[in-house]
């Protein structure tokens, strides 16, 4: 009962190698070939894909939907940002900070460490009640959590600078730090998936009653998944903050929650590879359509403004994928677990 899954570890190693290769190629391209705005999109992609992988660690292994992970992201971003900002900036825009945080001007490790600690405490407090709720209640409760955290950040002017958000967060992150973060998060999610805790949570996902009858502590395993996933989210979220320099509460609400969940659904909930591939598909789709939102002229034909076209297309894509393939592109499979029979071509040749 307490052993690791050898198969998942072997698959995980191959999957890690494949995904790491993709991320390394992206990082090298950013450093050598891309201009400012393209390299921003590519860096952002690596961090968003990491967050989707972090959400996957909970949602994929437990089969429970969380709308609340963006709340972890928000807390991590604000704590890391506030820890790293210079005291003079903080006295100007966030005068009600406690003295120790006001005086602090943390470097990268300390800022990320504080963010992880804050999210850990928050995840433990919320994880206890959430782990005991039944499956359909959890999704509503996590939605409530997102609204709660967003409204507090939005209103707590003296500490968060309210709706205007933080400005003047120092740039402590380069492409290699982003790459390292993505690799840690992907490795973390793959290791958790093969671990005894991950396996037990997957058993609960498949059949809660049977799992409980085998002596698996259901609530405890859900709690572990919630906390592991929150910490991975906090790691990616805090690095994101130190890369973004300025952010506001509106960036941690529905649009992002929905975009990340869409990436997960399209890629397949049960798969870390799926999370990354889904993130890639939705990012490419959004970038292609974003030009349309403000309206544009194509060869003399003017396309009118289409507000929210990205969201409309993403929602449509989700609906189509769900109806055609309810488990997403990858389902519960990892790249490392695919055999030639999974490819139509491979079967034809052999």
């Amino acid at each position: 009962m307490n052993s690791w899954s050898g198969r998942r570890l072997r698959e995980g190693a191959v999957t890690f190698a494949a995904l790491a290769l993709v991320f390394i190629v992206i990082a090298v391209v950013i450093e050598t070939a891309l201009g400012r705005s393209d390299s921003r999109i590519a860096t952002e992609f690596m961090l968003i894909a990491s967050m989707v992988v972090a959400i996957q660690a909970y949602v994929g292994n437990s089969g429970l939907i969380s709308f609340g992970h963006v709340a972890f992201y928000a807390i991590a971003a604000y704590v890391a940002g506030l820890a790293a900002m210079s005291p003079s900036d903080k006295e100007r825009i966030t005068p009600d900070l406690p003295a120790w945080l006001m005086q602090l001007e943390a470097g990268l490790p300390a800022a990320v460490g504080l963010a992880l600690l804050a999210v850990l405490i928050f995840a433990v407090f919320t994880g206890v009640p959430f782990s005991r709720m039944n499956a359909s209640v959890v999704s509503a409760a996590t939605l409530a959590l997102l609204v709660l955290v967003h409204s507090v950040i939005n209103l707590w002017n003296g500490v968060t600078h309210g709706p205007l958000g933080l400005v003047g967060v120092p740039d402590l992150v380069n492409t290699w730090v982003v790459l390292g973060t993505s690799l840690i998060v992907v490795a973390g999610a793959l290791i958790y998936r093969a671990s005894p805790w991950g396996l037990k949570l997957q058993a609960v996902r498949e059949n809660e009653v049977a799992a409980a009858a085998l002596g698996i502590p259901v609530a405890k395993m859900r709690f572990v998944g919630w906390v592991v996933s929150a910490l991975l989210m906090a790691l990616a979220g805090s690095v994101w903050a130190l890369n973004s320099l300025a952010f506001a509460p509106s960036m941690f609400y529905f649009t992002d929650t929905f975009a990340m969940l869409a990436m997960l659904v399209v890629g397949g909930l049960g798969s870390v590879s799926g999370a990354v591939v889904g993130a890639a598909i939705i990012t490419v789709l959004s970038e292609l359509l974003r030009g349309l939102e403000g309206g544009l002229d194509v060869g003399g034909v003017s396309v009118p403004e289409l507000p929210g076209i990205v969201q409309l297309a993403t929602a449509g894509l989700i609906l189509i994928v769900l109806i055609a393939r309810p488990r997403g592109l990858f389902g519960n499979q990892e790249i490392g677990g695919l055999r030639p029979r999974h490819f139509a071509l491979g079967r034809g040749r052999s």
Partner: protein
Amino acid sequence: MSPELLIQQFVNALSIGSIYALLALGLAVVFSVLGLLNFAYGEILTITAYAIVLLVGAGVPLAIAAVIGVIAGIGMSLLTEVVAFRPLRKAPAYAVVFSSFAVSLIVQSLIRNVISPRPQGLAVPGWLDGVLTLGSIRIPVLAIITIVIAVLAMVALTSVLQGTKQGLAMRAAAEDFQTTRLMGAKAGRLILLAFAVSGTLAGIAGVLWILRTGSASPDMGFTPLLQAFVAVVLGGMGSLRGAVLGGFALAFVEVALQVFLPSAIVPYVQAITLLVVIAVLYFRPQGFAKKIEERVA
């Protein structure tokens, strides 16, 4: 606080509570049959509200616009079943959460593109803004209308559930859907009926909501969706009586926090309410009503 003010706030809580109760009831009707939450539920109110705003803007009297608005709401509810629920009957529960969520976003995007991203105001007739004065107590006309309409709707629903064969089938389905099917109830028709009832209740709530707020916006459905979730969760998922209780409980907590908290904290009322709800769920993961039902049974 003076007794007059206390009575006024009590009526206020009662009127907000009756809207929440309707909302919760509509969400619970579908949940009790399918065991799934409809994340496109708020869009029923949105559609109703937009129908009313557009019709009143075109010169249609408010009462007729309201009726058409409710019918449009029922249409939205049935459409959700056909598009987001029916194709995924055999899929895992999370797939339906996402598909209904996707429908909700599609409706919002379409309204943004076809009508306008900006809120649309409704010219509410003057008499609705009136205030009744009983001695030193002042009660808004709209509060009374809200309570009366909501109570009538709930009485009508109860008599349908208690008095008709379809109502009996729905109550049975809420207890045990599989057994109800074995007894000969047609599953597809029963589910469609549940969505129709859900759409009616949400549509009526939508009429009361737009009269209260006076404007319709593309994402207006979110707040009522969240309130309905909270009320249903508080009331013990799937229990219809619990949903009504949960709706009133939520309204009384909200109004009490607004009245008794120092004014500096009032903007945080929504956050505190959600915190109270999570605290309640900590001690009673099944909500209030489950306990009562188990005792009866």
